[in-house]
């Protein structure tokens, strides 16, 4: 309508002004330093984390004096000894590790066909449906979801009521190990699918056509082509699911009802119930150590490139 202004839109003018200001604040001669400047926020964040870890390390070396409820002045390894020897802690650790392993395997088994279908389907309606179904749970927090399971699986819950209609006495579906694992699998599925889908998109459908023209039925083509080529996605998804499960708090707390504690629940108890900061810090550090060793091992076995979603492939 007003051609003179359209020729030099207001947005351009604003950008010009910003550019001038930027030029004053950060002269061109500094430009070599720009990438480092951009690293700064990340470095700050990591710095804070490291500082926190050092603090936790410090507390982990002090024991709680039960008479005064103060931390000891001198350093000792007593907390680590307790953590590695006391029955309660080893049980919790075993339960968490075993549980995370089972959850990882089961989640990957469920996530694999789901992502395969999502990537390969011809019907865009089905693809959209699968995507929405995947993202919907993200809008509902973990705690809310766990409470949802209470409503469905509780003694007066929907499942038991339905069973009651056919004359089955209520079954205890909650507050046991399977309930926690079930809740975790349901929670982890979207993460696994989201990590697997890009890896599968990177496998050209033509490879499967080629395999079939070369004489492979779908089972062989799956075993020899799809599965090996999805390895990066499977490793990445497995790692994420395993570490998220190992450190999960809400689902063991709510669906386990206090009887199925994972490591995070034990840490919480140490900090906020018994107020034994030293023990809580020790358990936290051990958890970080287990997680790091695991990631390190996976990198060593599969190569650090695996998590880059097939970046080393053409």
């Amino acid at each position, binding site marked *: 309508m007003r051609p003179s202004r359209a020729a030099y839109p207001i947005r351009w003018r604003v950008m010009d002004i910003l550019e001038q200001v930027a030029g004053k604040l950060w002269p061109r001669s500094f430009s070599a330093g720009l990438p480092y400047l951009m690293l700064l926020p990340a470095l700050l964040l990591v710095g804070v984390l490291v500082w926190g870890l050092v603090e936790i390390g410090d507390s982990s070396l002090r024991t709680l004096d039960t008479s005064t409820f103060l931390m000891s002045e001198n350093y000792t390894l007593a907390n680590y000894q307790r953590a590695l020897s006391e029955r309660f802690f080893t049980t919790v650790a075993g339960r968490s590790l075993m549980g995370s392993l089972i959850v990882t395997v089961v989640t990957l088994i469920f996530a694999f066909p789901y992502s395969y279908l999502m990537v390969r389907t011809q019907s865009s309606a089905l693809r959209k449906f699968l995507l929405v179904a995947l993202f919907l749970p993200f809008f509902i927090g973990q705690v809310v979801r766990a409470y949802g399971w209470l409503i469905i699986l509780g003694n007066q819950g929907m499942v038991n009521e339905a069973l009651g209609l056919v004359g089955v006495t209520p079954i205890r579906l909650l507050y046991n190990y399977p309930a926690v694992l079930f809740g975790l699998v349901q929670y982890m599925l979207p993460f696994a699918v989201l990590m697997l889908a890009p890896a599968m998109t990177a496998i050209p459908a033509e490879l499967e056509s080629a395999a079939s*023209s070369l004489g492979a039925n779908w089972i062989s083509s799956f075993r020899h082509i799809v599965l090996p080529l999805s390895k990066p996605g499977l490793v990445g998804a497995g790692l994420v699911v395993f570490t998220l499960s190992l450190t999960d708090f809400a689902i063991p707390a709510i669906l386990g009802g206090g009887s199925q504690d994972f490591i995070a629940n034990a840490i919480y108890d140490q900090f906020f119930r018994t107020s034994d900061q030293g023990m809580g810090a020790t358990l936290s550090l051990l958890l970080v150590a287990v997680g790091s060793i695991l990631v390190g091992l996976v990198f060593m076995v599969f190569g650090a490139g695996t998590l880059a979603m097939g970046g080393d492939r053409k």
Partner: protein
Amino acid sequence: MSAAPAGVPQQETAAAAAVSVKRVSKVFGDVHAVREASFDLPKGRFLTILGPSGSGKTTLLRMIAGFDAPTEGDIYIGGQPVKAVPPHKRAIGMVFQKLALFPHMTAAENVAFPLKMRRHDARTIPEKVERYLELVRLGGYGKRRIDELSGGQQQRVAIARALVFEPDLLLLDEPLAALDRKLREEMQLEFRRIQKELGVTTINVTHDQREALVVSDEIVVMDGGEIQQMAQPVHTYRTPANAFVANFIGVTNFLEGSVVETSNEAIALSVGGMRVKGVAGGTAKVPAQGELAAGALRAEQIRIAPTVQGFSGLANVVSGEVRDAIFEGERIVYEVVVPELGGAVLRVFDHDAESHQQFGPGDSVALGWNAKDMYIFKK
């Protein structure tokens, strides 16, 4: 099973052919990708399906391979209907446009794959793999990973993989399209050598007319999902069935006008008021007097000279003015404006530029051609 009484003799002819496509159509939604395509290919022959982009070449090939089912019609391989046979049970080797080599395997493992899948004796596999790698001149390259091979070498691994299990039929879906011209021409000859050596029936898809002419025993020209012509390369080039084929293969001038005279094969057109003589082209009906028609004339059939002297034997002689002269290495292409033909622009090849005079833009020239070199198609 579905053979109706009328289908019985058809099946007998199918038995003689390695591949027989009978009135096959494929419809995607509202796109008619292939319409009533039919052809028979005898055993051991090299057929090329040639056509512009989107003409249905890949679709036809995929139906033969078994990846897609025809909407209508039947395909016979070795005389047997293959409607109910899934791809992995058809003995077809296929080389894909993007090769589809398995990136997590070595060259040898790729070639061994079909043998393993088809449960060949494990002891014979390494020897066979090596033999086929040698056939494609890659002996000793077996241990290389796919991404450690050049484009042309990958191409040859794909060919070895498609051939190693001795399929009845080899399908090639534009596997050379991505290569540079020199390598492509080398590989074309390589294809022909291997195909002759093994005698495997082959269907090749391309939109490169040169490749089609060089490698094939037979060419099927497709357009808009329909087969326009199936013939040997020489015939496809020299006696195109219709205006589309004439235009698609080679560099062809079209002169449009109304028919002023027909007698047997000879036809005369009036183009921009001038009488131009040609012969009826293709198999379609000869255009009648007064109808609109187009004369197709190859650029290399036109002779070019400074004056009409020496053109006395030619049925058609015109004069014009050079508009552009393009040097293409082995030949010069002239674009000549001919006022006598209503200002038509004719492209003329001069392959022998050294020995006689060269022309530049603005020069007056004489053009001449034989009546038998101009095919007249009904519009």
